[in-house]
């Protein structure tokens, strides 16, 4: 891993005012929302009001959109490789830079929300729920950043977000189809022998997509030393290594000119 690449990635983000503004909003919006809830709900002080771990997806997306693609597009990647660095090192550094920064930001936001809740109800301060929420955020950041790095090395510029949106749309459609196939078939009941295995395949595909776009690991089962979650850990590891490996493989097949498109 290369420290200079990490630092450059973070500096580049800092220089982008739009991203900084969105990041500030991401910090403030949940706090504002929970403040409103506290004002309007009597039992609000009894609950630890932290955003769900899925919020980490937003932070990761913000940090990782076009992380490699933009450098390919404006040609700076060619300049990066004038330094003594391998593509593998570059990809891993980029992945670590965005996932670490996203994890820090999302955990920090969680800590702020938790501290506000704890201020009103000090008994919540050392709750396991908060600890597991933060850990899940970190896992989501590192997992989803790997997916984004892979998409970013696939296309130039910020087209990775379009690819992501395309996959999300496809996932939505297949989810809908899966639901329809599992429901009452009506007049198509005679084709149930064909349709039900098809529904199984669609479910499998949806599960894989779910794992790819929401790579989360729960902490409590791990603390229980629960073997049932061994496949989940395996899936997570497979996703991260496969995404990084394909990203390195894809970049190795590219020629880096001074401007890609």
């Amino acid at each position: 891993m290369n420290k200079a690449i990490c630092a450059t990635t973070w500096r580049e983000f800092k220089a982008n005012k739009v991203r900084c503004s969105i990041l500030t909003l991401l910090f403030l919006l949940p706090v504002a929302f929970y403040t409103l809830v506290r004002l309007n709900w009597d039992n609000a002080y009894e609950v630890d009001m932290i955003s769900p771990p899925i919020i980490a997806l937003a932070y990761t997306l913000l940090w990782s959109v076009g992380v490699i693609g933009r450098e390919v597009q404006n040609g700076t990647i060619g300049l990066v490789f004038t330094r003594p660095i391998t593509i593998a090192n570059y990809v891993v550094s980029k992945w670590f830079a965005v996932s670490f920064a996203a994890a820090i930001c999302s955990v920090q936001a969680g800590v702020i929300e938790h501290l506000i809740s704890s201020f009103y109800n000090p008994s919540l301060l050392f709750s396991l729920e908060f600890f597991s929420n933060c850990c899940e955020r970190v896992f989501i950041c590192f997992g989803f950043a790997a997916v984004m790095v892979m998409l970013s090395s696939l296309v130039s510029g910020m087209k990775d977000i379009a690819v992501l949106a395309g996959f999300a749309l496809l996932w939505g459609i297949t989810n809908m189809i899966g639901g329809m196939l599992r429901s009452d078939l009506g007049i198509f009941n005679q084709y149930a022998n064909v349709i039900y295995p098809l529904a199984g395949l669609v479910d499998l595909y949806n599960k894989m997509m779910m794992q790819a776009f929401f790579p989360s690991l729960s902490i409590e089962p791990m603390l229980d030393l629960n073997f049932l979650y061994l496949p989940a850990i395996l899936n997570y590891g497979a996703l991260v290594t496969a995404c990084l490996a394909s990203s390195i493989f894809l970049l190795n097949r590219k020629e880096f000119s001074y401007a890609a498109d």
Partner: protein
Amino acid sequence: MQQISRGPQGASTGRDTKKYVSMRKQPLWLYRSACLLLALSGAMMIFERVNATAYYDTLKLLLGPERVEWVPVKDAAARAIALKKPILLVNMVRNDYYSDRAEWSVIRDGHNADIINQHYVPVRVDGDALNNASLLSPIINELPFTNNYNKGFGMLAIPYKLIGANYRDVMSTDNIFEICNLPNDQVNGDYDFYSSGCAADLSPVSKSFHAFNWSGRVMRRAKFFPALYWFETSGDVSIFLDRAYKWHTGKPYRGTVHWQPETSLTMEASKPKLLTFVPDCGVESDQLRNQLFKDEGATLVNQKFLPVLFDVKRENEELKINRIEERARGDYLDLRKTYKVKQLPAMVIVWPSGQSRVVYCDRGIYNIKEDLSEALQAGPLWESAPEGDTVVKCSHDGLCRIKGHNHFSR
């Protein structure tokens, strides 16, 4: 430090290649790891999809033998009555977050398994409510976690004396107040109560009373006592098992009423006696104790009456054979016959003259204080005219004098 050449595809630049690494050097170890993990992960996913039972059985090989000694549903009631232990009804459904955690680790945890085996008769339901035709059916079929639309993890402790009772009775027994009266530091506030009477005592220490997990993982009600619907750690389940057991083996709540010993029935007194016949468990018992045995109810009873409490052992047709001795000690049948008590809960006001009047909760338990005050004012009253007696005269408020008696009946 490694020096890296910039030749395309790792082509030699004329320098010593041992010292230089190509920019395009492929990380073979990463490719191999990715392929291996993908293959393993894909194989497991397909294995689960094709034959789920074999998949879970294979994974269970890693866990070792089951530590909880499960009892079949059909045998559970008889065993619980024989051993006088509560039944622990456990519902676990595959692919449910808490069921999976419970089945694969929490219930297999040595400490929890020991508590379950020692204090309970454990029964697995597994979401299969309707097929279980047994004494537990009235309860199982009402359970929220075996409902088709809400299947998931659930644990319910059923006292042996409530076997055959309905779900409402199981969820509300008077012993709950014994738990509530524990010092705050002994009460882990993760419990929600069916009875409203307990909420006030627990709310200062309850972090999740009427609460749900705000992080969005679970949006169910927190926990009904004695049912457990979700947990964070294995320790939560241990606490639940411990509390549910203590609760079911505790004494019924007697409140702040100055109860007199049963021997005081024969003693003369200036105030009327109040003979209170209450079942020792069940929802009506809980509600009556909640209304009458504390606060204003207790003040009324202490001021106006000489109270005597009879904790009547719950009548249960299925249990009669097994509990003949116990019933003889605890059902007060002779006394109830003397005062013509037809149903429970009931209160008999016995005036110093020996005349009596039975007060039931006909207008609902929440009006019992008013009913008692009115009955005290109205004076002795027969519940019904004895067969063959003739009504002589009726007053404007519906009280009728019966031939041969000085009493009035409505």
